[in-house]
């Protein structure tokens, strides 16, 4: 218990760092993921190609490598941003590939006739997707997106190695100060559990709430 209370500020700062990284990256990943999923089901071949390349490159690259690419690569093109923004870009883009595939699986659960009916009424591709297909896909993508965001919360620990303040990184400070390493990690784990279990709870609620929406 002492480890926690003696270092409350360090833990709290790390906890907030992880929370912020997860929240902002999740927002980016959700927006990008839905847009890329739209590309992947688009009637325009170059857009489908772009979507496929996006997903396959990001999904098949180790996240740490992606961090190096962003943190070391972007400055070479004159793009110098705070480490937090670099971390959000790496995490958000990486996770968007998984969100995209979850959304695409959801789109595939909606009968094709729904889209055909929308198109036959003169709706554009965007209207068909936004008004008819995605709302019906929404419920079935809640569970996989929940899992993906939990993975994102845990993946955010990598940012600690790239000068971003986050929860896992606090162990370095604490071990230097000579605190018990086991308890240091126990409290870090508790911090992650609070975040990941909260995500689970939110998604369980969403799933229940949208259960009857048809």
């Amino acid at each position, binding site marked *: 218990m002492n480890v926690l209370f003696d270092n409350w500020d360090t833990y709290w700062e790390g906890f907030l760092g992880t929370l912020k990284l997860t929240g902002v990256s999740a927002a980016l990943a959700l927006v990008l993921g839905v847009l890329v999923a739209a590309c992947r089901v688009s009637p325009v071949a170059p857009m489908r190609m772009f979507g496929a390349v996006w997903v396959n490159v990001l999904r098949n690259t180790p996240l740490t490598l992606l961090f190096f690419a962003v943190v070391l690569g972007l400055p070479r093109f004159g793009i110098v941003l705070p480490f937090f923004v670099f971390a959000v870009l790496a995490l958000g883009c990486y996770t968007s590939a998984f969100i995209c595939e979850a959304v695409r699986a959801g789109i595939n659960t909606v009968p094709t006739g729904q889209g055909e*009916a929308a198109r036959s009424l003169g709706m554009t591709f965007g209207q068909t997707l936004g008004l008819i297909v995605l709302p019906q896909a929404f419920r079935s993508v809640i569970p996989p997106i929940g899992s993906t965001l939990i993975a994102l919360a845990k993946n955010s620990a990598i940012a600690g190695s790239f000068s971003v303040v986050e929860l896992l990184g606090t162990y370095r400070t604490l071990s230097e100060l000579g605190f018990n390493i086991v308890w240091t990690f126990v409290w870090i784990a508790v911090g992650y559990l609070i975040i990941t279990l909260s995500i689970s709870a939110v998604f369980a609620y969403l799933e229940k709430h949208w259960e009857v929406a048809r």
Partner: protein
Amino acid sequence: MTDAPTAPTPPGPGPATGRPLVVLQGVNKHYGSLHVLRDIDLTVDEREVVVLIGPSGSGKSTLCRTINRLETIESGSITLDGQPLPEEGKALARLRAEVGMVFQSFNLFAHKTVLDNVTLAPIKVRKRGKAEAEKRARELLDRVGLADQANKFPAQLSGGQQQRVAIARSLAMDPKLMLFDEPTSALDPEMINEVLEVMRSLAAEGMTMIVVTHEMGFARSAANRVVFMADGQIVESRPPAEFFDSPQSARARDFLSKILHH
């Protein structure tokens, strides 16, 4: 049956105007090695009711779906009101807004109420006001005998009711042409007539209609012309009385003998 259409059975289709609305020329399409549409030439005039019949796999549904480009074609041309069908995009969406389509499986938007199903496209595509769209939607629902079902979800309706909502949804766009792709094939027998009644009254009002169906009674009484297809080709194209009473091709005679005498 409080919700059955109240319009009396109209006598039959009105005369066509002789002004071509849909023109297909030399249309070909393959599914892999299967040649589903072979050199199709077909002209449908304004106010004409054309029924497409033929054995399953003859290409009639595919033909119907090429007219609003839900199916693409490989060669030939399709024009609607003189305009060739555009490529995928805004222009195609505008054209589809002018062509109503009724599907075998209804395809009502499962997450929207009956009223929202009918008002959605007028509001989003035609940019009509909500109040105006709802007023028109209620008139159309009343017309198909479903005014009291406006706030239900599609899954709460019978098949016949769903199909009548689907017809109202298409009519809400004030289409120039209505395509019906086997509109009664997924219905229980006792629900077929309520849908056919609505279609008959549309035909009598002068709506241009292309109907893929197995309902020979409807073809005989409501169509100006029967187009008989087999193996991707148009085999006969004649007024219904002539076609049913004295089919010219062996293929049509064979088809009719199988469906009319069992």
